[in-house]
């Protein structure tokens, strides 16, 4: 009897995504799909708005990493106002933006690790969902929970100091920033009482890596074999190949490390990256144009970034990077669960960048905005916590937005997340008449490794609820299981 299984990893309530698995009469997995059921229509309704609204308006796409959207839009509009890309801004403007961005990376990665990953590591993925959250962590290991909360707070306050608000700030404007960082504002961080200072944050980030490495030592098989599949990897990299989350060129490599996009200028991203539309999801499927839809899909985010970059330009993170690379003998890492490891190395890198940047006197400079010859079109790309984020705007002679195109980080990971779910379904559901508990857990863990905004947010305060429904050939429900 042919069956259809529906899993709603995040529930009907918020309507962000669900999974369906189709079995044939022998119980083999025919296909599985991760449906993204949310659509808002930003690309159309932004048309006609004045361009300078974009950085504050479009960030309302996502309250989890609004700084990334704020800055990607501002970078696109830097081009429009003639300030050029990347290094065309004043030192003050670029560094204030970098500080804002790395603060965001820091708080987002900390949130993910402490609120989302640490409960799994402490209690195991099979533990009672009631305790598998930050509050559960606080009950058994208050120190760890406090650390997580304070690291997030540090990042959020730094965002407030540079952007004006913790969420949906206004600091970046086309051509620069609207304020610098005053000495008093700086001192509040550099001279902050422990642990609220950059030095303490570096130490805590190192401790988080140690925590993970100890877990890795004990659970090597799970971490190295869960949902492993080859893929291409894509991210921005600095001119010299360094990890740079604010600016760079697009580099993509295949699963063996062969370069397939060789540091190309993102102003022409549309020549290299196309998107496929599939009728069953509102989220499009990007792919590298030259390789086509079947082979051109890629991963983005921490795992991809540590695969594409050559080195990390801060010493402590570089040391960890070398150790991490040794696990795959320098080859690209295609192990899904290593994303957590990579994310923590970036957390440490962000802490180091913040510490160094805060001592830079350019932050107190007074040249905030640069303008040049106006253009009608601009592209802004940034490495958001979850991966590469593209913003593209075209304006008319009245300064109104005429066209907007957005490829967000989680969209870039659409195909990989679908592959991960398919991998789990094939391994664990083949020949099964009933939905099994380990399968439910595995789907949740597989999706969460990519840290799609939905999983991060739902898990922040509680758990990721799952609902699985089993249908027979006539679409009649014959079994149903819930967790969470």
């Amino acid at each position, binding site marked *: 009897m042919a069956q259809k299984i529906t899993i709603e990893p995040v529930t009907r309530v918020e309507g962000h995504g669900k999974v369906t698995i189709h079995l044939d009469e022998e119980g083999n997995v025919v296909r599985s799909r991760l449906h993204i059921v949310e659509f808002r229509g930003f690309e159309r309704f932004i048309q006609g708005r004045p361009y300078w609204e974009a950085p504050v*308006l479009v960030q309302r796409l996502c309250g989890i990493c*609004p700084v990334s959207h704020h800055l990607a839009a501002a970078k696109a509009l830097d081009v429009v106002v003639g300030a050029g890309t990347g290094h065309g801004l004043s030192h003050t403007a670029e560094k204030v933006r970098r500080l804002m961005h790395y603060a965001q990376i820091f708080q987002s990665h900390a949130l993910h690790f402490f609120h989302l990953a640490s409960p799994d590591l402490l209690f195991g993925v099979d533990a009672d969902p009631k305790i598998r959250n930050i509050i559960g962590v606080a009950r058994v290991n208050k120190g760890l929970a406090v650390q997580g909360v304070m690291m997030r707070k540090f990042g959020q306050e730094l965002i407030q100091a540079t952007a004006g608000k913790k969420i949906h700030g206004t600091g970046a404007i086309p051509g620069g920033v609207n304020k610098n960082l005053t000495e008093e504002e700086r001192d509040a961080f550099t001279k902050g009482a422990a642990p609220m200072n950059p030095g303490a944050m570096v130490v805590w980030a190192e401790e988080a890596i140690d925590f993970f490495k100890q877990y890795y030592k004990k659970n090597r098989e799970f971490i190295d074999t869960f949902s492993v599949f080859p893929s291409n990897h894509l991210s921005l990299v600095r001119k010299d190949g360094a990890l740079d989350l604010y600016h760079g060129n697009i580099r993509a490599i295949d699963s063996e490390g062969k370069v397939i996009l060789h540091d190309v200028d993102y102003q022409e991203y549309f020549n290299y990256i196309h*998107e496929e539309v599939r009728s069953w999801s509102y989220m499009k499927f990007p792919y590298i144009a030259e390789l086509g839809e079947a082979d051109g899909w890629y991963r983005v985010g921490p795992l991809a970034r540590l695969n594409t970059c050559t080195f990390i330009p801060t010493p402590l993170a570089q040391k960890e990077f070398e150790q991490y690379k040794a696990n795959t003998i320098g080859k690209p890492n295609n192990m899904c669960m290593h994303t957590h490891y990579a994310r923590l190395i970036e957390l440490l890198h962000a802490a180091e960048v913040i510490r160094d940047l805060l001592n830079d006197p350019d932050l107190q400079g007074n040249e905030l905005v640069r303008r040049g010859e106006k253009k009608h079109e601009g592209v802004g790309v940034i490495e958001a916590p979850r991966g590469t984020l593209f913003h593209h705007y075209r304006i008319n002679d009245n300064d109104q937005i005429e066209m907007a195109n957005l490829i967000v980080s989680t969209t870039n990971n659409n195909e990989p997340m679908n592959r991960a779910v398919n991998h789990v379904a094939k391994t664990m559901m083949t020949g099964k008449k009933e939905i099994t508990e380990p399968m439910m857990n595995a789907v949740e863990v597989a999706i969460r490794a990519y840290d799609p905004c939905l999983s991060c947010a739902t898990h922040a305060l509680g758990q990721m609820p799952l609902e699985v429904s089993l249908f027979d050939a006539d679409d009649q429900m014959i079994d149903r299981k819930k967790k969470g």
Partner: protein
Amino acid sequence: MERKKTIVATASLAGCFGCHMSLLDIDERILSLIDLVDFNKSPINDIKNFTEYCDIGIIEGSCCNSENVHALKEFRKNCRILISLGECAIMGGVPAMRNGIPIRECIEEAYMNSPSVKGHNPEMILPNDPELPMLLDRVYPCHEIVKIDYFLPGCPPRADLIYSALEALITGNEMKLPYEIVKYD
């Protein structure tokens, strides 16, 4: 004897999760909330999971599709107090900017006209699978669908405002609303 905890349920409808993130921005106070509030019941639980009547339901986001409406009605049925948190819940917010535009134009812009799709979607595939919920003709604020008891403004509402409101509702004391914590942006 353990005091009975206040049960809080939350939902994110058509929003950006920023309001939920702002709730997290109460920082270390979240650790002291443990003693007063049971969040386990549902930050973002499935509506059908309501196994007990909740004291407070917090709604972020507006209603842009049929599932949002369904979820909101379930929250009303299962919560004694319902709060519209943030501009989307209160007045539709940024998603409601599509209200003057035919929904077909929004869909075509995203799936046919965008520079990374244009010319690469010859069959003109649009998302239309039965698994996808039906989009509404326009985006509705929550109080146009169900009765809402409290409105907390801001995009997002500041953490202090959310905390102050929760504290007042939990303890039964009057809500303190100093000028500095009520913002509308």
